């Protein structure tokens, strides 16, 4: 059960056409080395599910600039003009989802739910085409699960079983996406021995993490 692989082995796991989760919020808590290696590899026709598309120079935005996505599902693309350009010119399909809905959709996938009901977006254009379900007199949108083939995430610390610990605001989407991908690869700043993370403070149980990449600080 050795989960530690090198970056090239990690990138081998992402195939043309795959749907990928990428952790991070405007690049904070993103797996930067994995992203750089994926840019270098040039894997194409990917579907991205991510909170945002970073900037052209930071985080997942580099993959946008390199035109590796055929579709992007995100809550915000305003910090990366290239995403907007590709959308406007019809090069890349972009689906915008409210941030709180997006994370619940991913959680539904990872946690075995058929979806959740949320009031967010009711009455707006976002709601068009979505099923409305009335619960005790109140309307909600039915939001379905979102799965991925591979999640690439970042963590501050990991033990060799894959238990993850995040510092500061880097937890964001990393924690939940690990539960909803067939393969989760965590790029970690610090790798410690099994038993070196107090079980009370593990943020992501190691069972959600298939592979570890030692990313350094």
């Amino acid at each position: 059960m050795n989960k530690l692989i090198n970056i090239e082995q990690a990138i081998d796991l992402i195939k043309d056409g795959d749907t990928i989760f990428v952790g991070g919020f405007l690049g904070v808590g993103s797996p930067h080395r994995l992203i750089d290696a994926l840019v270098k590899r040039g894997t194409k026709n990917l579907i991205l599910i991510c909170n945002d598309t970073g900037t052209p120079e930071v985080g997942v935005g580099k993959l946008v600039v390199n035109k590796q996505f055929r579709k992007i599902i995100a809550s915000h693309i305003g910090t990366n003009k290239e995403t907007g350009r590709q959308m406007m010119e019809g090069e890349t399909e972009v689906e915008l989802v409210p941030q709180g809905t997006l994370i619940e959709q991913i959680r539904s996938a990872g946690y075995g739910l058929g979806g959740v009901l949320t009031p967010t977006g009711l009455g707006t254009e976002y709601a068009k085409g979505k099923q409305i379900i009335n619960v005790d007199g109140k309307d909600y949108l039915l939001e379905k699960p979102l799965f991925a083939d591979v999640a690439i995430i970042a963590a501050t610390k990991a033990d060799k079983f894959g238990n993850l610990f995040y510092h500061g605001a880097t937890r964001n989407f990393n924690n939940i996406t690990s539960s909803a991908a067939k393969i989760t690869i965590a790029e970690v700043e610090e790798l410690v021995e099994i038993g070196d993370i107090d079980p009370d403070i593990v943020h992501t149980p190691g069972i959600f993490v298939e592979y570890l990449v030692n990313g350094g600080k």
Partner: protein
Amino acid sequence: MDVKSFIAKRVAREFKDGNLVNLGIGLPTMVANYVPENINVIFQSENGFIGLGPAPAPEQLDPAITNAGGIPVTVKPGAAFFDSATSFGIIRGGHVDYTVLGALQVDEKGNIANYMIPGKMVPGMGGAMDLLTGAKKVIVAMEHTAKGSLKILKKCNLPLTAINAVDLIVTEMGVIEVTPEGLVLKEINPEYTVEQVQAATEATLIIKGKPEIMKLD
């Protein structure tokens, strides 16, 4: 005092001791600078924490601690970090007392448009739809007009971020409350007359007696 600081200072007067507040990017962020010293307001950052503090001194800078705009910040004693699912649970679940956001348009039903101009600017809703749906009170903090073009309308014509969501509009001209009857001008900046405020507002302002003078202290 410049117009934005004036608006931010007036917004800060709404808060009560112990309130949990989420501030949007731009002008709303400035509100934190004007919280009265005799009350303790707690700020939430939707990327994953409660206890947002001021910008760091150079030696305090921690790349893992940024606000929802990706800008380095600090956290105050008693802060707590969490993932995006918890963050938006707090937001959607009605645990945030006030959210302060800017707007492109607001109308007399409390509808708000602040996330896209079709064909021109499509940044995405980020966390705004969830905040507008979930926060107990929504305050729009913005300049009264956009270089003369009206923003407080009878009916928004841009895609809505949320319906019936706004409670209070604070501009450099006055403070407007959204009520079931329409927009009530509650306070006025003494530099303007009621007629001037109405002329800068497409929706008909309801005047109940004489509006109070906008107070900043």
